[in-house]
């Protein structure tokens, strides 16, 4: 195995339905419905997915939603801002946990 992540593996995603077809079917139905245009447009949903893909650091999702964002008319500037939103929330989540640290210091310190 050259790499844990291979582009061609994305095509094997559906093999996850082989041992649990009902769960797979439910997941795919749900997945499809989530990305239908609703109160949010398809373009907005693709940008959210792109940001989340970066937050969960999934290379398959980054590939898929970079393409999907472009296909839905977003440009690189907008997509970069979306990634910064993911970065800000991830970074902010680390930083805000510093309050826990401070609470513990306060509790156990003089």
């Amino acid at each position, binding site marked *: 195995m050259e790499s844990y992540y291979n582009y061609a593996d994305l095509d094997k995603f559906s093999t996850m339905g082989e041992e649990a077809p009902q769960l797979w079917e439910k997941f795919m139905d749900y997945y499809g419905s989530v990305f239908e245009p609703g109160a949010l447009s*398809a373009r907005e949903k693709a940008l959210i997915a792109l940001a989340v893909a970066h937050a969960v650091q999934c290379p398959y999702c980054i590939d898929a939603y970079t393409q999907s964002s*472009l296909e839905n*008319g977003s440009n690189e500037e907008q997509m970069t801002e979306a990634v910064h939103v993911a970065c800000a929330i991830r970074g902010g989540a680390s930083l805000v946990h510093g309050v826990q640290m401070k609470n513990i210091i306060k509790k156990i310190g003089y």
Partner: protein
Amino acid sequence: MPTNTTQLDDLNSIETITPFEETLRKNGIPPLRVMEKAETMQMNIGLLCNLRCKHCHVDAGPDRKELMPREVMTQALRVMTELCIPKLDITGGAPELNPDLTWLVSEATRLNKDVTVRSNLTVLDDERYSHMPEFYAENKVTLICSLAYYSQKDSDRIRGDGVFQSSIKMLKRLNELGYGREGSGLMLNLVYNPGGAFLPGAQEGIEADYRRVLYDRHGISFNNLFAIGNFPVGRFLSFLKQSGNLERYMEKLSGAFNPSTVSGVMCRSQISLKHDGTVYDCDFNQALGLVRTPKNISECSASDLLGCEIAVANHCYACTAGSGSSCGGAVI
């Protein structure tokens, strides 16, 4: 630029996709034929262009010399009259660079044909062609204008430095003449092209973005936006090959094949004419030199042009993927 044969070989030798003809058969769709009543005569009046866009499927540019002579235009108008074809769609290259364009438009208008010109906008910014917007307005020509994207960076990346600002300037001028304004009767349609090896999304959503951004930033209005996919032919095919995207792009196109687009593909309702008078099924077959029976417009009768079987190859997936694609945007 690869030869026509090489381009077809490239398209037809991708092992991971099913040949287009076989896909039609598998979906129970009979071989495509031109309808018995053609709606449009599409004339490519020359490959000379002031731009060299990265997605151009006919490989047009400033170094091209090919221009349609008036004799071919005359024959095309004869056929339009004989077959009662109501619409004339003029493309290129930059049509304005053919010195007989104004003659062609005037004659077609005199014959009561609906005339559309596909303009790259920037050519109208050249002093030598600065009279053309007024000429188009006087003849009630519908304009379909390239504006690959609504931001300068993304648009110029596809079409060349300075093209976006020049296009915006000309769109404002067309708006001043009434184009794209409600009630004027002057139609101004824009064309979006994806900026690389990806497909266009829903036309409606992209049109809404264009309408909002162009009006808010530049005060520009237009009638319709056509989201036209990039065709794996000509300069764009070269890009796909050089960038290692060909196989994946073709897999995407073939994977998105939508049988319900087939009845509306443009080759079924149009006659496509090359600058030298050769008749094709569409502009893409023209660029590939793909034709079942070579024929020239000067020798054609109705039976030669209507009801004939259409030549197809794997590039036809570009017209039948997703919502479909045509020179008039999405098919469904």
